[in-house]
């Protein structure tokens, strides 16, 4: 197939033309992540054009945001990226605190880092499991969910919910951690460490997995930046950008004193790559394999952050401090803040006219921009590659359609 696309990958024209078929993949297709419809123009097995159709899960949360107060909007942010609801709450809370110039207590800050990173691990586990499902292997999905259940149990003890928590809110958190929670969290981390090698053996170094993902859906740096992609999708193309380090002052202040390296390939190798499987020979920077590998590295990175957060959280003795009043007035003006969510940079833009109800609540979704690249990546690939590429982008429809 390669010789056909040698000079210009964009032009795919066979003289022997079976008729071009317009094929629908989704919205009820088992492989896509939720209700996403891809209209493929295929010529035999080769896909010449992909057009994603979204909007099936559109609830217009932004319109609702203009009729309720800032703290009442928190449950709506849970339902945007329902796999990483804590990070969504954190993003909205920080945006409102930036507008109010509100400073949370030291204890709340460390607890927020602890919970957000734990939720990142859970989200990446789902991403990894679902990606295995897209490529046809069922078992990793169950291994991933077995570990994620343990994290959800921890969250359930902390805030009572397993998926849509509304735990982190404007001005701090709704409640402090129960006693013994930290020990249970540490024991989870201990037994989770060796299991990561299991995932690598199951997927990352699996010859068939490498054959299905290496050098497929290659996205160059410029394309990723031009489309506004972010998170593991951007870092998979070698762009060294992580909002926890390069973001706004109020967000990076949260990660003050935490030592972590951004999981991106710098001049040929990943940070601390001695104890991870080597990059396979035919994997090109920016392909599906690298995006997947960056997520696996971020799981380990988040585990270190959680350990550091546990130590700092138990060290500081101050009160947790309770969140702002429900009808606390927001100063007039606008504020935009992007936080590093597992899927990418999730931005919240609030315009306030001085009352407790925002005049305009805008949510910029990372998966929205990540998905926009699909038609560039899927041009000229095979039908079996489309779920592989869309799976590697790890999109969540709740966040895209809002």
């Amino acid at each position, binding site marked *: 197939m390669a010789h*056909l696309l040698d000079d210009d990958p*964009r*032009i795919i024209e*066979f*003289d*022997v033309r*079976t*008729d071009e078929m317009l094929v629908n993949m989704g919205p009820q297709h088992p492989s896509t992540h939720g209700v996403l419809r891809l209209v493929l123009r295929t010529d035999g097995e080769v896909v010449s*054009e992909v*057009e994603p159709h979204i909007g099936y899960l559109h609830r217009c949360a932004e319109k609702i945001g203009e009729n309720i107060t800032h703290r009442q909007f928190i449950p709506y942010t849970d339902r945007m990226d329902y796999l990483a609801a804590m990070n969504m709450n954190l993003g909205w809370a920080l945006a409102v605190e930036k507008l109010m110039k509100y400073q949370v207590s030291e204890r709340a800050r460390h607890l927020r880092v602890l919970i957000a990173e734990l939720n990142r691990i859970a989200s990446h586990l789902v991403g990894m499991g679902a990606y295995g499902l897209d490529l046809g292997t069922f078992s990793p999905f169950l291994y991933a969910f077995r570990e994620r259940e343990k994290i959800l149990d921890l969250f359930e003890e902390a805030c009572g919910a397993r998926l849509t928590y509304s735990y982190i809110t404007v001005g701090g958190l709704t409640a402090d951690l129960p006693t013994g929670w930290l020990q249970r969290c540490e024991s989870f981390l201990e037994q989770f460490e060796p299991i990561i090698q299991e995932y690598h053996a199951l997927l990352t170094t699996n010859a068939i997995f490498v054959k299905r993902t290496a050098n497929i859906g290659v996205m160059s740096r410029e394309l990723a930046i031009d489309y506004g992609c972010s998170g593991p999708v951007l870092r998979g193309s070698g762009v060294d950008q992580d909002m926890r380090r390069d973001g706004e002052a109020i967000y990076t202040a949260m990660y003050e004193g935490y030592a972590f390296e951004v999981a991106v390939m710098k001049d040929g190798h990943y940070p601390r790559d001695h104890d991870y499987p080597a990059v396979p020979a035919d994997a090109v920077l920016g392909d599906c394999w690298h995006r997947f590998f960056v997520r696996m590295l971020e799981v380990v990175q988040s585990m270190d952050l959680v350990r550091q957060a546990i130590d700092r959280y138990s060290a500081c003795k101050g009160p947790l401090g309770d969140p702002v009043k429900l009808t606390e007035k927001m100063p007039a003006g606008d504020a935009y803040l992007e936080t590093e969510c597992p899927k990418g940079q999730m931005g919240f833009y609030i315009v306030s006219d001085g009352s407790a109800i925002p005049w305009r609540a805008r949510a910029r979704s990372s998966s929205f921009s990540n998905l926009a690249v699909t038609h560039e990546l899927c041009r000229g690939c095979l039908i079996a590659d489309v779920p592989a590429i869309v799976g590697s982008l790890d999109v969540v429809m709740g966040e895209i359609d809002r």
Partner: protein
Amino acid sequence: MMPYVATIAAALFAAPLPLAFINWHSFFFFLFAAVACGFAVAVVAADSVVRMAFYLVLSLGATAGLFFLAGAEFVGAMQLMIYVGGTLVLLVFGVMLTAQAPFVSIKGSGRDSVVAGVVGVVLLAVLLQAALSVASWRQPAAGIVAEPAATPIGMALVGVRVDEPGVGAPARNVRPGYVLPFEIVSIHLLVVLVGAAYLARAKRRKTPRAIEVAASVEPPASVAEHAAIGRDRSRGASVLSGGR
């Protein structure tokens, strides 16, 4: 119902062949013959192309049954593998690819069927006459070779005829095996394959449509020109944004 019929048919023939039992054997002979001819007629009569192909599969399958019945297991298996398993799979494959709307049902006009009928009858008459004229076929079935073996055929293919011992030393048979015809046929098939591959190769060249589609995605140089394109675009574009 169908699987039970097939299993009984297959198993009945599977029971060891008693020599003495003529009418049981001929019962099966008539069954297979009827299936073969019946579906052959069905191939001609069917209108949907894919059904034609399927009836062909059944009729050739029945012919394979006839070979097994006659004790020629090797040829029967060969028929199953080459004809039914190979040629007809490609035939159905080809039919499936082209069986889009225009070709699905091919109905000849009245005149064609008349001509075809005449030619068919003439051919049938010639065949019958030739078959009946062969002396050794006329007496009733003398009996089936008790232990049909594939090995003589195999050895013959390699060039050593073991079934008819020639004159001269036992170790050297004078009757030539089938090596030469076998090689000729394989070379012939090779040439046919290469030809087919050459014809079906994908000739790749740039056509205007592809270039125009690619160009319009490039950001246009000046903003003004860009504005002109957008202004007159119709509001409701087609499902797949091909309306560029």
